[in-house]
């Protein structure tokens, strides 16, 4: 097992180039043992390359990689029994039956989970004899997840485990992932679902263009700052409202009829806004005070333009 204080995954100044493209451009990362660490980033940010370097599939051009204290390429033989891997896609022959594949992967381990019980837990019991290519996309994803955890690994790498899943399957996946963490395993998960990272992860690392642009717990990233939102008729005179608010507050209308007030959102500010609305005969709807979401932070950091 991992000595106390040691990280499950430790990357320092990791660089990986494919020809003229720099996929990973100096990533530092420390994934705590017994925690869920989410790598969040737009397509092409370098998430999969990073995770595949940790899995031992590729060598970094420079930088250091320690996974459970080991070098994933040099110490592969020692490391492989201790990790579970879910690839972003594929990984299972089309003709292999679901139960057969899971039993095969289980048989590579000394103390695996019961494959039948695991299939049942992931809602695949009825598909045990179905060939992989006849499973739905979501069923294929769940089988892939099952294969990653059946060997009872200390550290699990999940590359976009919920891509294309329906809400039920997403919840089943989240439950299994948090169950693993609660049982003491470490999980590294890539995703571009903000809600998933916010809900699952103990630590979030936001990656863009091969670099880490932010890291922290979801609460740290979204900050203590609150916002007040409400809907009302379009075209309210915001300057007048702003004059009544504490200095430093910001008021915006975007889109028409949707109002956002940022600043030091205290009870007094709320009272000021509602009083102002009352004196101007404005009926508000959907008035709420909320934190910034991870999605707000993410878009702020990575920009709103579409990526190819």
């Amino acid at each position: 097992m991992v000595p106390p204080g040691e990280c499950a995954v430790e990357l320092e100044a990791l660089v990986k180039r494919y020809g003229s493209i720099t996929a990973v451009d100096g990533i530092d990362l420390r994934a705590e043992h017994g925690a869920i660490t989410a790598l969040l980033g737009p397509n092409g940010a370098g998430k999969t390359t990073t995770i595949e370097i940790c899995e031992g599939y590729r060598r970094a051009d420079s930088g250091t990689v320690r996974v459970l204290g080991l070098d994933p390429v040099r110490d592969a033989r020692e490391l492989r029994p201790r990790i579970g891997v879910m690839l972003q896609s594929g990984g299972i022959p089309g003709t292999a039956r679901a139960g057969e594949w899971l039993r095969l992967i289980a048989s590579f381990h000394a103390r695996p989970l019961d494959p039948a019980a695991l299939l049942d837990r992931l809602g695949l019991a009825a598909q045990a004899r179905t060939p992989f290519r006849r499973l739905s996309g979501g069923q294929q994803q769940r089988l892939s997840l099952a294969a990653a955890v059946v060997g009872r690994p200390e550290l699990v790498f999940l590359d976009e485990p919920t891509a294309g899943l329906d809400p039920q399957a997403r919840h089943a996946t989240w439950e299994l992932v948090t169950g693993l963490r609660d049982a003491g395993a470490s999980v590294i998960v890539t995703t571009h679902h903000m809600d998933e990272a916010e809900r699952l992860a103990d630590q979030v690392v936001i990656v863009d263009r091969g670099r880490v642009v932010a890291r922290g717990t979801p609460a740290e990233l979204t900050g203590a700052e609150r916002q007040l939102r409400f809907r009302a008729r379009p075209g309210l005179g915001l300057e007048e409202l702003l004059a009544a608010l504490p200095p430093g507050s910001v008021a915006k209308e975007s889109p028409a009829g949707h109002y956002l007030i940022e600043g030091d959102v205290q009870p007094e500010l709320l009272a000021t806004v509602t009083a102002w609305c009352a004196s101007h005969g404005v009926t508000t709807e959907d008035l709420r005070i909320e934190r910034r979401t991870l999605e707000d932070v993410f878009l702020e950091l990575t920009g709103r333009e579409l990526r190819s």
Partner: protein
Amino acid sequence: MSGTLDLTPAPAAAPLRAMVAAQASFELRTLLRNGEQLLLTMVIPVLLLVLFSTTGLLDLGPGERVDFLTPGVLALAVMSTAFTGQAIATGFERRYGALKRLGATPLPRGGLIAAKTLAVLAVELMQTALICAVALALGWSPHGGIGGALSAVALVLAGTAAFSGFGLLMAGTLRAEATLAAANLVYLLLLALGGVVFPLDRFPAGMAAALELLPIAALSDGLRQVLQQGVALPAGALATLLAWAVVGPVLAALFFKWE
């Protein structure tokens, strides 16, 4: 039964023998479930044996037709499993990312190759039993006794190593679709040109000399020398096969790409 799973980490690899046995049994089941593979490995060899033994379509020289044909068809069976079938199956495993995924399990690559070889040998055993049974029913009288049987086994093992090497070389370097097409094409060409059912001495002398160096020709001819003519150890044929059995696996080891 949800909730009863103990997810507490308990990592450890299974013993290597258990891993290889599980993978070999998985590979064997996959091979036997595949209709096209069975056509290639079982149906076509038996059809050729029956067709050309019972008709005068081919002039096979002196002696019983079945005595000439059976060794050639056994050689064809070995090639169909070790080369064609293995190339196609492995090519698609590579395309599906299954080889990549297995690379992250405790099963080492050498263990995977051993498992594939065991599955190939198991299929060859079934083919041999089927072909010999049909041949005996058609009046086949093999020569050589126990010594001959051992020589035949040595030839088949050398041939299996050679064909597996080239099958894996193809699977590990070409796209899966290209492997499918090329492996079938090579099968047909070697069936026609490798002395399997058409005697090599009908080709022009220079061409026949070159064709004799093909692994399929060395295997057909070696088995024919032992089983039809009673030669104890066909040294030339075995030497040719052993050379191929070195070249094929070495090239595969050098050029095989896992993803």
